[in-house]
């Protein structure tokens, strides 16, 4: 199977869907002629024409607001927000409108839109090119929230998201765009060409929403992670030698609780890792669910390793980023408890 970067996989997903379904349209800032600042939509305007892939004014509100209107009409817009840090101007349209349209109209109007956006740090992007706002979406009923960790899933889940009848927030860890990143920023960059999950089937294929994946089988403790942190957790397991079972959550909502509970009941220990700030991060929900569902199986407190509760700093990027050392320490502590 061909190996692709995450960017290529994402572009391929849109290409496949635009080819299959005339109702799929793609737009956003710099998305048309230029193909997006991360080049995820490169070539799509040329291939499908300017009325199916186009540049927009710099208004995230307008991008999402018009997408909702188009979805109500019957199209399936897949739009890009240039960085997740810039989604807030569209937050009202997402929360008050996209998320509730089906419900409040009793299904007369629906909102099958996908809102793609690059998330996470590790690229010296400072406060406004590094955020991971997933918890701001998982709190909103009516939305689905997805975070792929590799090219294979990125393509398969983006196709699922475009085909989904409801609004999907599709978060792309930008630090993974060109290669799997395990947090060892001091080491040379690796490429997806060498990673088995860089293998991406051609044409139409899906990875279902709502299903987690076990990235590493293990018996000592369960790690719940998504996006970049899946790779960091793998590094931490390798480096500590702790036999961690690493679950790649993939879809945050709806969550694959079964897979999580099954693993934690087996291992009795759980470490949750994400890059977003700690307080009210999605890790809090995971922690609450784990202890609600596995209380009598837990041998240690569920631990969280996350970004600190500060804005994402520029110079102190690697102090902020939950790297393999910090994650590994949590493994050790959780095993010792």
């Amino acid at each position, binding site marked *: 199977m061909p190996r692709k970067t995450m960017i290529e996989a994402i572009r391929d997903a849109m290409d496949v869907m635009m080819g299959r379904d005339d109702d799929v349209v793609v737009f956003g800032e710099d998305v048309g002629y230029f193909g997006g600042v991360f080049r995820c939509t490169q070539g799509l305007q040329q291939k499908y024409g300017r009325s199916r892939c186009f540049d927009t004014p710099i208004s995230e509100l307008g991008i999402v607001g018009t997408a909702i209107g188009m979805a109500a009409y019957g199209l399936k817009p897949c739009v890009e927000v240039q960085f997740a840090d810039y989604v807030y101007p569209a937050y009202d349209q997402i929360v*008050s409108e996209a998320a509730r349209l089906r419900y*409040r*109209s009793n299904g007369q109007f629906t909102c099958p839109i996908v809102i793609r956006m690059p998330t996470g740090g590790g690229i010296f992007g400072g406060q406004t090119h590094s955020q991971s706002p997933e918890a701001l979406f998982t709190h909103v009923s009516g939305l689905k929230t997805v975070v792929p960790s590799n090219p294979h899933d990125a393509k398969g889940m983006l196709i699922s998201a475009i085909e989904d009848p409801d609004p999907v927030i599709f978060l792309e860890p930008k630090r993974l765009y060109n290669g799997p990143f395990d947090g060892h920023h001091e080491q040379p960059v690796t490429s997806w060409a060498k990673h088995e999950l860089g293998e991406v089937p051609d044409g139409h294929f899906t990875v279902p929403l709502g299903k987690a994946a076990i990235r590493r089988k293990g018996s000592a403790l369960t790690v719940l992670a998504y996006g970049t942190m899946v790779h960091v957790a793998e590094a931490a397991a390798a480096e500590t030698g702790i036999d961690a079972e690493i679950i790649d959550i993939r879809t945050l909502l709806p969550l694959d609780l079964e897979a999580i509970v099954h693993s934690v009941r087996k291992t009795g220990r759980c470490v949750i890792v994400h890059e977003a700030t700690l307080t009210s991060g999605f890790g809090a929900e995971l922690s609450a669910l784990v202890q609600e569902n596995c209380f009598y199986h837990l041998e240690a407190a569920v631990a969280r390793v996350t970004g600190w509760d500060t804005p994402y700093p520029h110079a102190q990027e690697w102090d902020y980023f939950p790297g393999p050392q910090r994650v590994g320490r949590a493994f050790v502590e959780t095993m010792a408890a």
Partner: protein
Amino acid sequence: MADHAGLRLHVPEPEVRPGGTPDFSNVVIPKAGSVRRPEVDAEPESIRDLAYSIIRVLNREGEAVGPWAGLLGDEELREGLRHMMTLRAFDARMQMAQRQGKTSFYMQHMGEEAVSSAFRKALLPGDMNFPTYRQAGLLIAGGYPLVEMMNQIYSNEADPLKGRQLPIMYASREHGFFSISGNLATQFVQAVGWAMASAIKGDSRIAAGWVGDGSTAESDFHAALVFASTYRAPVVLNIVNNQWAISTFQGIARGGSGTFAARGLGFGLPSLRVDGNDYLAVHAVARWAVERARRNLGPTLVEYVTYRVGAHSTSDDPSAYRPKEESAAWPLGDPVIRLKKHLIVRGAWSEERHKQAEAEILDTVISAQKEAERHGTLHAGGKPSARDMFEGVYAEMPPHLRRQRQQAGI
């Protein structure tokens, strides 16, 4: 800096407050028939003046005059009158029902009936409105059953929205009426998106967005104008200027611009102001704007100059912030009375027929109400189930909602 007096904040205030005497002498009202009717493909820049005037058809004598007159025949006008009278009767009954505790909330249209009723008749089947809470005339003139509206207001067992929405937050795809949002202005930009979709598909259907004077200050208004202007979306963007936004007079949202229609000029949009209490004028301008959209000439901004005669909603008491007599002093009159007079002047109507119509309409509304009440009211009789609360959040109920429904024991 010593040579400048200190700065001061300017906070606009209405001419009068409770206790004062209503005074609309500052509202410049052109004579009916005096504003020209440009071709629909006129250059926006060449019709700038229309954003600062008021297009009017019915004069004081009840005659239809000028270049915007002549579009509607007797039958259509009688139908229009009936729609407005129905809306007014409906409002009165539902206000009362709310006071009787049959529902939690209501919002009436008193004084603004012409705007939505006349606009609706300029549309074709398949066109889509993105309304606010004060355009029920779109439904009534569009043939949506009164009883369905009441079922929604009562949140009863037959409520088409299953009790999920606040009263009057109707939705009917079939009747070209998008789901009303409680969040102001959000739907304005969605209308532009819907229209863009129609253009993307090479369709012929157009969209209409609706917003109140106060709500033009919201961000969605700007996004709507930006996107409509850039992509020349086939959409009519309607601003209903009823002078008030709850307790806030329109000067707070309008600032120094003179009119709300003027907002469109900075986007190169044809921007028209029309007498919102003149059924014929509203209809004529709507036709003009709809034709522009349909002919792929792009968006139009229309400001309807009207007056909110009633309270903002059943939670509001306007006597706290404006003189009680202000509505009576409003110089553009009452839309129902004005159309009635015109029909009489035309020889197509009479006081007697009017009384009779009034009685018939009241009957119709009352019998619809009786039927609706057989299905229950908010606190009595049939109601949507608690199960309905869990349905429809997603197309398919995800596991966590299934668990929660189970936990709720339903």
